[in-house]
């Protein structure tokens, strides 16, 4: 059996490809790109929420937010580890992000303007992420699939805390409710864009589906998300900012309005409200953290030398 035949047989049988298996170059390349950009997204995703840690309205909310931001760092690490099994190095991947040669999800190029945004991110952005990631737990590459399983478990906390945060605001004063509505107005459309271009405009979808890297198309995931989210929004007593949204009895799904793809591509290309700031902040944090990495390395070397000394003494 050739490598290609063995690979095809594993994919056909719905089994997982593991790092030491033979795989087509395109498969490896697609995965490195996708997993790395997924990892970058987790890491950059810490910024919009980190923005509110010092201003959380209570100690409880602050502790929750810190735990969530810490989770995002962990998610980045699981994903970088998965990418590294494909023959890349962490430094290489981090460098690709810092030099702008690899991207992260455009959703993080929007600002978090009020406290309710933290709720909207948890509920909508993490909700969209879960929809996508639950499908990805069935991806054909073993390490990616395992990372997704672990992440999905933790992501559920993110979504629920976000919804509960908004629910609390919606049961509060009119001013608090307005704040929640304002956040939903701004995050709704970018959340729908998170699923990526329409299937007709996704030239790589067919290949990714054939390799079972991707298990559900962008449009199907987006529809799933809308169907799940609209009733939740109604329960909050908030309006979905889409005049064309209505239940379609015949399809058994919600119909929704057209997405502004010009905005989407504009943000992907680097012209969103926060692209420059996110990258500048990431690079600054990396540079300013250099002494910590250097100190850890120096400490490890010193400890190793001391152990050697004690052994020979």
């Amino acid at each position, binding site marked *: 059996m050739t490598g290609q035949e063995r690979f095809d047989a594993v994919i056909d049988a719905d089994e997982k490809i593991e790092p030491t298996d033979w795989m087509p170059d395109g498969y490896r390349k697609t995965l490195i790109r996708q997993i*790395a*950009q997924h990892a970058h997204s987790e890491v950059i995703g810490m910024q919009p929420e980190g923005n509110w840690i010092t201003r959380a309205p209570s100690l409880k909310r602050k502790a929750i937010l810190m735990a969530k931001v810490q989770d995002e760092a962990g998610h980045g*690490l699981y994903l970088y580890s998965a990418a*590294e099994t494909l023959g890349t190095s962490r430094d*290489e991947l981090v460098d690709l992000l810092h030099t702008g040669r690899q991207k*992260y*999800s455009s959703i993080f190029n929007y600002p978090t303007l009020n406290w309710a945004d933290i709720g909207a991110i948890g509920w909508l952005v993490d909700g969209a992420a879960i929809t996508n990631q639950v499908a990805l737990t069935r991806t054909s590459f073993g390490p990616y699939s395992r990372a997704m399983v672990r992440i999905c478990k933790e992501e559920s906390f993110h979504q629920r805390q976000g919804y509960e945060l908004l629910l609390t605001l919606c049961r509060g004063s009119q001013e608090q409710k307005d704040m929640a509505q304002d956040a939903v107005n701004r995050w709704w459309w970018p959340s729908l864009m998170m699923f990526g271009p329409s299937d007709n405009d996704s030239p790589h979808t067919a290949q990714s589906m054939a390799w079972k890297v991707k298990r559900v198309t962008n449009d199907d995931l987006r529809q799933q998300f809308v169907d799940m989210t609209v009733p939740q929004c109604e329960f909050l007593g908030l309006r979905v900012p889409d005049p064309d949204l209505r239940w379609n009895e015949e399809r058994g799904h919600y119909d929704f309005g057209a997405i502004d793809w010009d905005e989407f591509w504009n943000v992907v290309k680097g012209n969103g409200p926060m692209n420059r700031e996110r990258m500048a902040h990431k690079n600054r944090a990396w540079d300013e953290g250099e002494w910590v990495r250097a100190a850890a390395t120096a400490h490890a070397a010193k400890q190793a030398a001391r152990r050697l000394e004690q052994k020979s003494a």
Partner: protein
Amino acid sequence: MSYDVPQIPGEEEFEVAASDTRQWPMWEVFVRQRRGLSHVHAGSLHAPDAESAMQNARDVYTRRAEGISIWVVPSSAITATDPDDVDAMFDPFDEQPYRHATYYEIPDEVGKM
């Protein structure tokens, strides 16, 4: 969160290589969930030495009471089977069904065995 970042028309394609030797060594993390169970592989991480690998493993893999004991092992210390030898390595056992309890027919009258 997850995100498939779409390719911009004309986006530069480049090879990603593992050329780097600056980075800290990789460690494999094993976690024992509770007494009576084995340590199970949880994932991996980079760290300059065992002590910081252990601290990082705690923060990364046991934030939700996933464990009561952690092992960290340098990834380079693991010897693994060669994927090309899988057939020669494991196939012989496929032909030895008599090693399994279900191979033997015991009459129902004998009762549970």
